[in-house]
């Protein structure tokens, strides 16, 4: 079942770069909480638990040296969110960035949405490479000149300066969520976006911050009757009227905003029937969907639950068209994973540019590449030990039980503190960004 290659057409992955500190003592603020490429793939943004955003930019390729792959270097960094205190509930509001989503580029500046548990912000990232010089009333350092000493008039001119990248908050979308925001998604109409918390989904206009439309509300009249929560939501990549949201019970609901203002009644319900004889205490917990992503072509969607990745055809609601086991060997460890809370870890998943391969993270800093077209999969590791430039990543194998082979690692030796929850794939090229707890790894396709 495990193939030698992965990533379509026998792509071999090599190390390109790693960002972050090497020391094992990880400060909480440095824990990476989200990773996202922009629409061209030129920019790569990360958010962390300290509320900071770091944006990397791909260097323009050196055409004379095709072997020298373009690297991602720091482009801009800023403090997006600060910790707050909800006085009414006496609860702390974490500054951790839950999600970053880029807006498609419309002009010279770049825009992204970043959100913590309660507030979404629209950030403008712009470049400044010229500055005006030769003012009449001011000195170069800004001090005002004595008007009496001015005898001539000059025209200020723009002169080149060292590139400065500025990030400024353009909109703050606050006070619309009682519960914790888990998702934001920009609509294909480039005017609206949705934000989802545990029980509600809201629709915003990017220009309007004092109003938000509630489009899904699953809060029961009596909270004692609460049986499921919303875990993720996303707009369809092309149909601006369609969005999906996933639940903690393993279902996905597709809604059409043309049908009614409040989309509590779904248009489609995607659910795989469960074998009742297999039901256990853990069944519902491990069926909870931690991420849902539409394919780029808009025909499929992928869901990630604790042990598997499922690909759904939007035209078929009763079962997924493909199911991939991420780390099936963990099924016999569910008891300890429940005790150490790992069973509640929320893994994300992503598609490659042409929807032929999907990727998701696991434990021990392992991540999985699942090739849909070739029906092969491979497990790779993000490790400081494979950090030589252009070093090819070796496939990893986990031994579930019985005799452990030479290169395998046994399930009991896996480090469950080293989890890869966030990964991102460049929209066009075979470049992937993999976030370990506090490091960001960038891997690229091997170029011969």
């Amino acid at each position: 079942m495990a193939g030698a290659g992965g990533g379509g057409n026998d792509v071999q992955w090599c190390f390109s770069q790693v960002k972050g500190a090497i020391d094992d003592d990880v400060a909480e603020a440095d824990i990476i909480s989200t990773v996202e490429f922009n629409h061209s793939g030129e920019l790569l943004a990360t958010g962390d638990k300290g509320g900071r955003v770091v944006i990397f930019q791909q260097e323009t390729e050196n055409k004379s040296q095709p072997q020298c792959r373009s690297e991602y270097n720091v482009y801009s960094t800023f403090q997006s969110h600060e910790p707050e205190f909800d006085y009414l509930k006496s609860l702390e509001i974490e500054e951790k960035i839950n999600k970053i989503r880029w807006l498609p580029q419309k002009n010279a500046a770049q825009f992204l949405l970043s959100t913590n548990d309660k507030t979404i912000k629209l950030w403008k990232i712009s470049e400044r490479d010229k500055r005006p010089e030769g003012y009449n009333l001011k000195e170069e350092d800004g001090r005002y000149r004595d008007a009496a000493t001015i005898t001539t008039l000059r025209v200020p001119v723009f002169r080149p300066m060292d590139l400065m990248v500025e990030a400024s908050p353009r909109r703050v979308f606050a006070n619309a969520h009682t519960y914790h925001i888990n998702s934001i998604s920009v609509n294909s109409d480039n005017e609206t976006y949705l934000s989802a918390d545990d029980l509600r989904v809201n629709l915003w206009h990017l220009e309007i911050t004092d109003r938000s439309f509630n489009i899904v509300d699953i809060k029961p009249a009596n909270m004692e009757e609460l049986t499921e929560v919303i875990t993720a939501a996303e707009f369809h990549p092309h149909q601006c009227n369609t969005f999906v949201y996933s639940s903690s019970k393993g279902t996905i609901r597709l809604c059409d905003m043309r049908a009614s203002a409040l989309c509590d009644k779904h248009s489609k319900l995607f659910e795989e029937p469960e074998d009742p004889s297999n039901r256990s205490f853990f069944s519902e917990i491990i069926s909870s969907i931690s991420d849902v992503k539409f394919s780029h072509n808009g025909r499929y969607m992928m869901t990630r639950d604790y042990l598997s990745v499922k690909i759904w055809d939007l035209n078929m609601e009763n079962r997924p068209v493909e199911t991939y086991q991420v780390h099936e060997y963990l099924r016999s460890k569910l008891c300890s994973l429940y005790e150490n809370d790992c069973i509640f870890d929320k893994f994300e998943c992503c598609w490659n540019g042409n929807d032929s391969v999907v990727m998701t993270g696991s434990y021990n800093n392992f991540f999985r590449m699942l090739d849909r077209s070739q029906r092969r999969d491979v497990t790779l590791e993000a490790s400081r030990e494979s950090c030589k430039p252009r070093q090819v990543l070796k496939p990893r194998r986990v031994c579930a039980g019985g005799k452990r082979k030479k290169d395998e690692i046994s399930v009991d030796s896996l480090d469950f503190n080293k989890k890869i929850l966030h990964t991102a794939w460049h929209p066009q090229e075979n470049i992937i960004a993999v976030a370990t707890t506090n490091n960001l790894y960038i891997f690229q396709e091997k170029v011969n």
Partner: protein
Amino acid sequence: MSGEVVASTEEQQEMQDTVVSPEKAEEAKLKARYPHLGTKPGGSDLLRKRLQKGQKYFDSGDYNMAKAKMKNKQLPTAAAEKTEITGDHIPTPQDLPQRKQSLVASKLTF
């Protein structure tokens, strides 16, 4: 990959004669350790805990004290500054002197 799912079901049916499915075995282990664990697993308790994530403080004063402890703030300094604002008006939590969090750059930028 659906072939893999079928295999595990078959495996389970084989094992049923001698051993229970790995998931059920894990469930038995858990019930043995925590006999009082509710019969409704994913139910309200778990969800409610999830909805109320985040540390609760008694009040804003408690929150600010906790933050001060985390930053090893010098309390005498705070008292000195306080004398500047009391007397004019009743201080609000926002007025209380707070050393502005020194912006530490993310280690990813190095």
